[in-house]
Each structure stands twice: as structure tokens, then as C-alpha cells.
């Protein structure tokens, strides 16, 4: 990976852009999708993110990694879109969301696993965005709390607090879902 040649003219370096997309395309589109829940909207955001990053590469300070920088642009862009009202309808078109709508015909243990996983997703999706985005970056993108803080422009401590509260909310939500939460019996 070619690293920060910040005074280059990125406009002349399409290979660098292709490399970013190869390395971080999946992370960017997944994060965009987690906000808008629409594959095509997520693609539009991802396109915008890479073009913006490439055009403003000269302004990249190099204090963070390229990945966190790209994710930071993604989060900002996705929030802008949500704020603008352009994407209010959060239709779930991801596999795990639909899986529960289809009557499973699998063996009982597979069904039980799937139901449990779906229950976790229902609970995650019901979290307020401030907690969901932290969870997404921490668990979904395998970032440290420090990196999550960089992406979202928060203090590390705030990220830790949100993660903790997010987990608490999840636990409560799972417990409410009738048996889908942590099983305290026998402990």
C-alpha cells in the first residue's frame, strides 16, 4: 500500500484510487449501508466518498489511517443524506432482515440459531443511530474505540460510553423479545 504522499496530485493517480477501492471499498459500502439500509443509496454514497477523498487527498493530514479517514467521510456523508430527508424510508433489504420473513424449513437447531441471530439484529436495528453507528464501526468494521472516535469525531471516552450503553440497550431489548435474550435461568 502506498502511503500518504500528501502533496501529490491525486488527480493524476487513478491507480491510488483503484487501490483504495480494492482495500476499503467493502468497509465503506458496508458502513454506508448501515445508515441508509439501501444498497443503491449505499453505492451512491460510496462513489461520492471515494471521489471526494481522491479530490481532497492533498488535505489529508495523515494523522489517521486512510481507512479511518474514508470511513469518517462515509459517516458524514451518510448522516448528511439522512438529515436532508432524502433517505427517510429505511427499507430493510439486507439478507438477515429478510431471512426472518421466510418460513424456515431447516432443522431445529439451525432455526434456533437463525432466530437468535435475527433477534440480535432486530435489537441492533432498533438502537438509536448514535449507538448503532458506534456498534457498527466497533463490531462491524473491527475498529478500536480510538479509531471509532476518530471516524465519528468523538472522544474515546464517549465512544466507550456509547458502546456500553448500546450493549445495555441490546440486552434489555433481547430480554424483552421473550426468551431471545440472555438466559439467566440456572445461573
Amino acid at each position, binding site marked *: 500500500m502506498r502511503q500518504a504522499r500528501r502533496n501529490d496530485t491525486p*488527480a*493524476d493517480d*487513478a491507480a491510488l*484510487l*483503484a487501490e483504495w*477501492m*480494492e482495500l476499503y*471499498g*467493502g468497509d*465503506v*459500502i*458496508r458502513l454506508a*449501508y448501515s445508515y441508509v439500509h*439501501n*444498497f*443503491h*443509496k*449505499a*453505492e451512491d454514497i*460510496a*462513489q461520492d466518498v*471515494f*471521489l471526494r477523498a*481522491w*479530490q481532497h487527498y492533498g488535505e489529508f493530514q495523515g494523522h489517521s489511517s486512510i481507512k479511518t479517514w474514508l470511513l469518517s467521510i462515509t459517516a458524514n456523508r451518510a448522516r448528511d443524506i439522512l438529515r436532508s430527508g432524502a433517505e427517510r424510508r429505511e*427499507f430493510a*433489504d*439486507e*439478507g*438477515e432482515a*429478510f*431471512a426472518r*420473513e*421466510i*418460513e424456515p424449513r431447516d432443522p431445529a437447531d439451525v432455526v434456533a440459531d437463525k432466530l*437468535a*441471530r435475527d433477534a*440480535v*439484529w432486530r435489537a*441492533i436495528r432498533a438502537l438509536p443511530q448514535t449507538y448503532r453507528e458506534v*456498534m457498527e464501526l466497533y*463490531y*462491524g468494521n473491527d475498529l478500536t474505540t480510538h479509531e471509532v472516535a476518530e471516524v465519528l469525531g468523538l472522544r474515546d471516552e464517549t465512544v466507550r460510553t456509547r458502546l456500553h450503553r448500546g*450493549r*445495555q440497550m*441490546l*440486552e434489555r431489548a*433481547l430480554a424483552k423479545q421473550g426468551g431471545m435474550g*440472555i438466559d*439467566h435461568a440456572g*445461573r
Partner: protein
Amino acid sequence: MTTRDDDELEARIRRAYREREPVPFRDELKARVLRASASATRENSVRGAARRRNRLMASATLWVATVAVALLCVVVAWPQAPLPSSAITETARQSVRAHGQTETVIHGFGLAYAPIEVSDVRIGTLPGEPPNSCVLAELRNTSNRTLVEPDVMGVLWFTPKGGGDENWLTFVNAPAQALKPGQTVTWGFHPSGPHAGSSQALAEIPHLRFFYSRPASGASASLVWKLAPIGVEDIQVLPVAGGQGATWQSADVYATLVNRASHAVDLADERAVIWFSQGASATFFDPSAVRFLFHVTPELPGVSWPTVLKPGERARVEFRVLSTKGTDFFSRVCHVLLLDAPLVPQD
């Protein structure tokens, strides 16, 4: 919450994230970004040249005002940098003009007929289906090599008994068994749609043609499916409540159409190709794709959209796709593409 609960919850969250469906970063998207960046580079270079020229002009003006004798030198010596931009523009214009005179570029998909002779296309009954609800035909492999199902894709369409153009069409598969050179088999298909009323009996005239399941070049194409000037955005797939039976299942595909032409487009003249691919970048030719063809007119009860789209106008449309129970609609990537009719041979 105990530490053990914490650990268990943590593990469940991690597992949920780890096992979720991936969101693909498609090759098409990568190509789109690279194209946009190349286009931005060209614009920047033109703008940069213009800026340089303006700066030089300003400098020259200053010189003219102060040193009259120097004027001539400046004018003669300077204009090297700005010129290429206008030269490029002119070349591009000439190039476009030249192409316009010699060839018409059609954006679309070339299809080549498969070497399958179709005869005795008729309405009939397949085992287990309602009377006269199926289309049967005799298929003969006219080539000297064995054809297998993934090699070809068929299009079945109907025309009214009183004459007229295609008024309903669908993709169909070739026979499941391999077709040896010269071999003839009877093929059958049970369509579902407006031609299957309450009795499900078919009343119109069926037609059938098979194509190779791969794109053909412009020169070798038997038929060209031309891209419509309609963009498709915001595609969503949702389950249909109660939309499944013992052997089948359905899903609703929603999409927003936008007229990108400078003229009005009658949606009755368009056809929609919808396909569900396993790979994010697969085309509808991909043998593993689950593909559908639709007229772009509302078919579902209570669903409506404008018949004609004015330039820039958008319409939200909805199609119901039906397939066998095992079709994994929701773990595939759904694509919607609009093509100009007709998609079927006119002979």
C-alpha cells in the same frame, strides 16, 4: 448483568456482525468511480489551462500598460500553455462528427440465436398443471455439439389471436437434460401472469426462441436489446405477505425510474429485465442468474404509475417476481434494467 452474561452478549453481537450478509462493492461501482474521476481530471485540466491563460492575460495587460515596447514580445512569446485545451475540444468535436457520419452507436446487448430449431409451439398441459395452462414445443439441436441448459436462455412471448405485437413475455430455460447434436425433445413451460386467468388456460398465441446465454458482439448479434433512456434507482426487494406456496415463492421488486432523455418516454414501449445474481457484477446472461422480463405497466392490484414519463420525471414502479421455493431472492443482488421494445424478433 454478570461478567458471564457480558461475555455471552458480546459473543452474540460479534457473531451477528460476523455472519451477516456481505454488502458487495461491485466491479461496476469501481469502474463508475474511476470513470467519474477521469472525467473530473479532464475538467480540472481544462479549467487549469483556462486559469493559467487568464493569469497570463492579466500579467500581459499590466505589461502593456507599462512597457509598450514589450507588448509585442509578450504576445509572441507566451501563448503555449493555453492552446492545447481548445485544440482538444475541437478534436473531440470533429471526432464526434466523424463518428456520427459513419456509424450509429447503440447502447445495448447483443444476443445470438442458439442453434435450436423450435417447432410446433402449442398450448397444452403438463403433468400436475391445470388444463391448457402450459406451452409445449419441439426443440431440435441443429448444431454438431451437445447443448447444455446453462448454454442457452429462451424467451417465450405471446401475441393476440387477432394479430398484433408481443403483449407478454418471459425468460424460460432450455430443457434440463443435455441436447445432443440432432436430438429433438419436447419442451414444456407453465407461465404465470396475465395469461393465466382463473382457469389458468392460455388463450393467446405463444412464440419461443432460444439465444446463447452470453453477449454477442454487434457484428454477430442476431438481435440487439437496446438500452432505454431510463435510469433505474433505489431498487428494493421485499417479501410478499403470504406470497409463498408449497413449491413457489414470490417477492416484490420496487424501483424508481427516471427519464434521462430530453423527450417524453412512453413506458408501454419499454421492457424491464430483472435479475438476481449471486455475484454482484453478474449480467443477466449469467447462467446462474434468476431472470425475469416484464412490461413496464402496472399489473398488480392497486398499483399504478404514469404511462408516460416526461424528461427528468420519476416514477416508482413495482414488479412481482415468482420462482421456485429454493430461489434465494434475498441473498442475491437484484438488478433492474430498462430496454426499448421490441425484444423479440419481428418476423
